[in-house]
């Protein structure tokens, strides 16, 4: 299969700052590909290069076989962008926002009218067609951004943190819609900081940190390989570490202390847990390993500012 997006040695510098430091990846047609990483990791910069609004400093990047250079209209024609920031046109109504976007994509009036009706149904905003943008909730605005991104029936959708600032209902509705699009064969490129979002939507992810790709893989497999199946958290003062670790030395678990918590990454957390109950430690938790553990392990637990 020919990949829809190919990057090799992709680099982006802003002056002296290296935002993306020579990364390679391939995105297959029809998959959902996620960029994960803390703030400033280079996710947004990477997707902005994919949809041709930010010039590539060096390396190659192609979309649908075409070079993703600035103002490559052919790439923009087949791409839909759901931006991180809500940049709807506040001077225009919901309907007008879509009408004017249809014009930008050379879509004729009649065709635009049909698509807009269909898209407003798709994102459940039919009743809001005549509303001003200021009258919409954040969730509605995000849904309208999705409708707007679909106006040109894109082959590729670039969604940059599409559910930031949403309540769970709104978030799940957006996930459903994105999955629906994927099932129709649309390729999805997603950036997110929500691990649950990546697990819900992505077939493959890369974890980015300081402009580089640290890991690439299928979410469930990455968790299995990097962490194991289960995590046990024990909240005890650091002075007691020695004592507890001595008791638990028989278990094949990797451990790590972060702040007030001792983490154990295990294949079999149950046996460890039974031992902990025996030790009668008050503050313990046994849970399945998640992508969040992978993320924190790879990018470190300290704050990224």
């Amino acid at each position, binding site marked *: 299969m020919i990949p829809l997006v190919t990057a090799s040695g992709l680099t982006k510098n802003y002056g002296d700052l290296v935002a993306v430091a020579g990364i390679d990846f391939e995105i297959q047609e029809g998959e959902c590909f996620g960029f994960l990483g803390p703030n400033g990791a280079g996710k947004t910069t990477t997707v902005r290069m994919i949809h041709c609004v930010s010039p590539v400093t060096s390396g190659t990047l192609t979309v649908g076989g075409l070079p993703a250079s600035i103002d490559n209209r052919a790439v*923009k024609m087949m791409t839909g962008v759901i931006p991180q920031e809500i940049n709807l046109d506040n001077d*225009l109504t919901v309907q007008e926002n879509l009408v004017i976007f249809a014009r930008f994509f050379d879509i004729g009036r009649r065709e635009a009218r049909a698509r807009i009706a269909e898209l407003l149904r798709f994102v459940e905003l039919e009743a809001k067609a005549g509303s001003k943008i200021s009258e919409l909730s954040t969730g509605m605005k995000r849904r309208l951004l999705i409708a707007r991104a679909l106006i040109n029936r894109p082959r590729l959708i670039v969604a940059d943190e599409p559910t930031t600032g949403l309540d769970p209902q709104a978030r799940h509705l957006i996930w459903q819609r994105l999955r629906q699009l994927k099932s129709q064969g649309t390729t999805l490129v997603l950036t997110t900081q929500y691990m649950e979002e990546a697990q819900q939507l992505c077939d493959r992810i890369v974890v980015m940190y300081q402009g580089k790709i640290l890991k690439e893989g299928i979410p469930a497999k990455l968790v299995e390989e990097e962490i194991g199946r289960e995590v046990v958290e024990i909240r005890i003062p650091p002075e007691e570490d020695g004592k507890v670790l001595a008791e638990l030395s028989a278990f094949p678990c990797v451990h790590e202390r972060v702040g007030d918590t001792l983490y154990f990454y295990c294949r079999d957390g149950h046996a460890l847990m039974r031992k902990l109950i025996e030790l009668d430690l008050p503050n313990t938790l046994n849970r399945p390993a998640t992508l969040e553990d992978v993320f924190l392990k790879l990018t470190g637990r300290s704050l990224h500012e």
Partner: protein
Amino acid sequence: MSLSYRIAYVFLRNLYSYKRFIVPTFLVSLVEPLFYLITFGVGMGAYMGAFGGKPYLHFLVPGVLVSAVMMSSSFECLYGTFIKIVHEKVYDSLIATPVSADEAVAGDIVWGSFRGLVSGTLMMAVALAMGVAPASPFRFLLLLVFMVFIGILFGSLAMIVTSVAPSFDFFSYYTELVVTPMLFFSGVFFPLERFPGWMKTLAEFLPLTHAVRISRAVFTGEPAAGLGWSFAGLLVLAAVVFTISIRMMRKRLIK
């Protein structure tokens, strides 16, 4: 430069947005000329006797006409565009579509010129109501075309300022130190002949001086010396500032 018919889409977007502000902007565009024409034209004109055999108002109108175009197109490309870039993020969403950054900027310059044309036309309507009319209907049409051109020139100049503006306050430098002085040194309100030599020379470097000269000649039908040079100079200047404004805005928009 990457310019195409898509400039019209940007213009259309602005027209959609304008619908909501059309009444207040019309009112402002009407009050401003009334203010100029009544205070200067009627009030001051009463003390000034005849200018070349006609009342002062006839001298004033052609100059105020192009000044109004300059003001409207400048303000639209300063404040209007800045809001669209920084506050409303309209440009961000625009350049993610097949519309290029160059087209977005050119579309806004054309839009600024349109706003100038609206102001100029309203001003003309007020002047007509006061009995001051261009020498012929053909000259009236010619003036409309000239106003569009002047709007593009001053819109582009303002766009250069916008391309480097960190905030709204920055615009005061341009409006207070360039635009407003130009209004008084370009022969809008009185002829330049009585200025000392160096001031006359300075005035020749102001684009508005040439715009006023052409406007007055077209309006009255009385030929003036050096009109061809004035027009050629403005044409070259417009081409240069238009190109520079798009280059500089591209630098601001594409990172």
